[in-house]
């Protein structure tokens, strides 16, 4: 069995401009920020990003890497509105496929199930239909005859997710209260890169946590990246909470200044800069 460990740079080197990229987590929670930072250091651009959006979306939008965003929202949770996402939208520079949260989930599930679409009772009557003129409906072939939205599969070229632990083979474990949709992102993608707080031996995974915490299965994983504090400044329960002070700095510092201070160097330089300023 193959060792899938690699560096964040190596994972990002396998991504290409123009790809459709799914990013796990939710809002400002358990986002694969070390991978996003590595992506920002690369030349990869023109991305279609599929995300329950948080600062991953804000940073990539601010850096001009997103051609199209597929999302139901973008938020920093404790700061309700994502400032850089807002700015990009208000400039009119971000193409958006705005869908409902459940439609998004059904789209991931359709992709994971290799279906072209799944019917969902959501979207009809709302302006989601107006702003997505490509969306089609489907009528139940049974007696009820109800009409549903046919949510197209959100098939991804690659997925980036962050979990608490993983082994070298790609078995990923979450220890917090919510799995979000990270396993589905991996299943919906052709390739998936899982960063984790700590790489451990396989036997270590179930020593102190039950087997149902093993969220991500290795057959859906391409690369494993050990990235301690890799979700910073988003939360990664129970290893750490959100760095609220730093998040506030992110939200209030002009992007060019923030980017120059924290994103110009590598991940080690990022950690040093965060440490110096806290």
């Amino acid at each position: 069995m193959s060792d899938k460990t690699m560096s964040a740079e190596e994972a990002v080197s396998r991504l290409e401009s123009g790809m459709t990229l799914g990013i796990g987590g939710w809002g400002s929670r358990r986002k694969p920020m070390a991978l996003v930072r590595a992506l920002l250091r690369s030349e990869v651009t023109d991305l279609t990003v599929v995300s329950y959006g948080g600062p991953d979306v804000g940073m990539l939008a601010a850096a001009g890497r997103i051609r199209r965003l597929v999302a139901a929202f973008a938020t920093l949770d404790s700061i309700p509105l994502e400032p850089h996402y807002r700015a990009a939208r208000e400039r009119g520079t971000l193409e958006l496929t705005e869908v409902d949260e459940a439609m998004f989930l059904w789209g991931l599930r359709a992709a994971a199930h290799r279906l072209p679409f799944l019917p969902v009772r959501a979207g009809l009557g709302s302006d989601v239909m107006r702003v997505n003129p490509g969306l089609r409906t489907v009528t139940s072939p049974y007696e009820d005859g109800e009409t549903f939205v046919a949510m197209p599969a959100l098939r991804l070229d690659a997925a980036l997710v962050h979990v608490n632990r993983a082994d070298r083979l790609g078995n990923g474990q979450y220890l917090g209260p919510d799995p979000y949709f990270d396993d589905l992102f991996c299943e919906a993608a052709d390739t998936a890169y899982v960063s984790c707080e700590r790489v451990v031996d396989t036997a270590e995974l179930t020593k102190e946590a039950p087997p149902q915490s093993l969220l991500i299965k290795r057959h859906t994983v391409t690369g494993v990246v050990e990235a301690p504090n890799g979700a910073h400044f988003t939360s990664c329960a129970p290893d750490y909470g959100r760095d609220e002070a730093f998040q506030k700095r992110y939200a209030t510092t002009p992007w060019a200044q923030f980017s120059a201070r924290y994103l110009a160097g590598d991940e080690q330089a990022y950690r040093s800069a965060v440490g110096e300023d806290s």
Partner: protein
Amino acid sequence: MSGTTRAEYCVIACAEAWRGGGEILASPMGVIPSAGARLARLTFSPDLLLTDGEALIVRPDGTTEGWLPYRQHLELVTGGRRHVMMGASQIDRYGNQNISCVGDWAKPVRQLLGVRGAPVNTLNNPTSYWIPRHSRRVFVAKVDMVCGVGYDRAAGARYHRIPRVVSDLGVFDFATPDRSMRLASLHPGVSVEQVREATGFDLAVADEVPYTREPTAAELRLIREVIDPDGARAREVPA
């Protein structure tokens, strides 16, 4: 106890949304709806399920009694056993709600949260709204982006229902022949004229509008001593 504050009438008005709901999930968004849901659970709707706002179902004292991560929460919505009280940046006379953006969607004047789960909520489980500052900016003739679906756009969808809208001025419902918004009750101290002045569309108003009911002494004690001893409610709706 001293006189009931406006925020406390709002808590009562929100709590009433969950009366008779049975064994369903109460999903409140905002300080006052959260206080209302807990009040309902502690008094007249003891079967309600409450969330901690994240992945857990909890009893009013915080004891965990269930697991409800986002993925299961979305499934629960489609099963219908939930009554959510959402916020609204804009709402119109048929209950269409917007939390996505202000202005042209293609290049908004103000980008807000996004549609979130409003489309799926409104087609699957009862959806009420909470608006802490009733104004013409919120109660508009036409919302810029329909997120939550109103009565005129639901086409009689089988599970669509908007039981009530609660604001800092009163309670509103859609119990009119054309399912347009009606003033159901005024919070004590508020006049019909004040509500009309703050509403950007023609509101149905009966000749006699009742006042939002008074809390009982026991309810007031629960609100003040058990549910919100720090007075967060007054920061959402000042007296």
